[in-house]
């Protein structure tokens, strides 16, 4: 251990490669031989990763110095870089076909999610327009929530709740997508783009689609990536004005 620890700590990214590879090997084997592929190995591996993160700290497993490299492999730089690389498999014709409806699904997704979030917040005893807007924004993504909250001057515990709502959403989407994919017709590029626009959380959408059918990842990710931008645009401005109109303040 005394010899291994500094080696692990010094070569964080390499350790992350080994650890993730081993985890995927284990769960792909388990899915194939024990579950007869009923649940995709990738979905199991992601679920296991979330459980592991629970036993970590604020930064999940990366809170332990030995696994600090996981933050690099799973950080936004490599995430975005690899997502862009998946576009190599996407067809331009498919994108053009779904272009307009993809944009429409973005606006519908942000609007429905925000107002449902507000209604739930109201139902659970929040009445202040700033608080309600922050909760609704958090239901969109864990980036929209804090940006909206700080723009409106919400208190820090409300901002924490909005981040939590966004993280819960990401986890929920990751787990539930492969399970319901067939029932909602998520099996072609067009519906994947609509799905990405409606759901929004890029990491959740991409992880969920990866566990469903990796070929759909670029289409879903393409629309989802605009969701946070639109959410950040609408929530602290138009939506806040609407909420303030109804709840006073």
């Amino acid at each position, binding site marked *: 251990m005394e010899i291994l620890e500094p080696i692990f700590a010094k070569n964080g990214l390499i350790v992350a490669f080994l650890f*993730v590879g081993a*985890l995927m090997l284990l769960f792909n084997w388990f899915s194939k031989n024990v579950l007869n592929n009923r649940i995709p190995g*990738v979905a199991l*591996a*992601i679920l296991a990763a*979330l459980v592991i993160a*629970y036993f970590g700290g*604020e*930064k*999940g497993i*990366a809170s332990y110095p030995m*696994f600090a490299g996981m933050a690099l*492999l*799973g*950080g936004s730089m490599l*995430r975005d*870089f690899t997502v*862009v*690389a998946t*576009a*190599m498999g996407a*067809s*331009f014709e498919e*994108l053009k076909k779904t272009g307009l*409806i993809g944009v429409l*699904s973005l606006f519908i*997704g942000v609007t429905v999610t925000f107002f*449902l*979030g507000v209604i*739930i*917040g109201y139902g*659970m005893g*929040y009445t202040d327009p700033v608080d309600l807007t922050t909760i*609704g924004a958090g*239901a969109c993504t864990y*980036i929209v929530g804090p940006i909206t909250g700080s723009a409106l001057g919400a208190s820090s515990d409300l901002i924490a709740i909005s981040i*939590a*709502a*966004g*993280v*819960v*959403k*990401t986890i*929920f989407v990751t787990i539930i997508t492969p399970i319901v994919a067939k029932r909602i*017709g*998520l099996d072609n590029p*067009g*519906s994947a783009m*609509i799905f990405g626009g*409606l*759901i929004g959380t890029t*990491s959740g959408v*991409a992880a969920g689609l*990866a566990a469903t059918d990796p070929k759909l990842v*670029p289409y879903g*990710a393409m629309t989802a*990536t*605009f969701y946070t*931008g639109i959410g*950040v645009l609408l929530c602290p401005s138009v939506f806040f004005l609407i909420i303030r109109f109804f709840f006073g303040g």
Partner: protein
Amino acid sequence: MKIYGVAFLALCFLLGQAIGRYLGMAIGIDGNVGGVGFGMLLLVIINDRLGKKYPMLQETKAGIYFWGSMYIPVVIAMSMILNVKAALSGGWVAVIAGIVATGACYFLVPVLSKWSKSRAKVS
């Protein structure tokens, strides 16, 4: 050379980030609006337009495909560094808002897909 593919990918990525950043500034947000999406669009469009005349060598493509195939491991690593404990302790409002509001959108996927298909038929 594989590095040509990786470099091309890096170029699309960085241009996309820059466009997203400028778009964010233009609408008054200190952030990146759709940078990843623009990067993907650039990759697809350049590949579509130039690819017909100057098809990319297999070896060059392999550099891009490698990073595309690293996507799932990256997502697993990302799941391992989320603050899951905080998400679960954020109280019920976070859990319910996160799940119910999202769940509703799942029902809209088939609705919009259907609408999109019928519209395609008309046109």
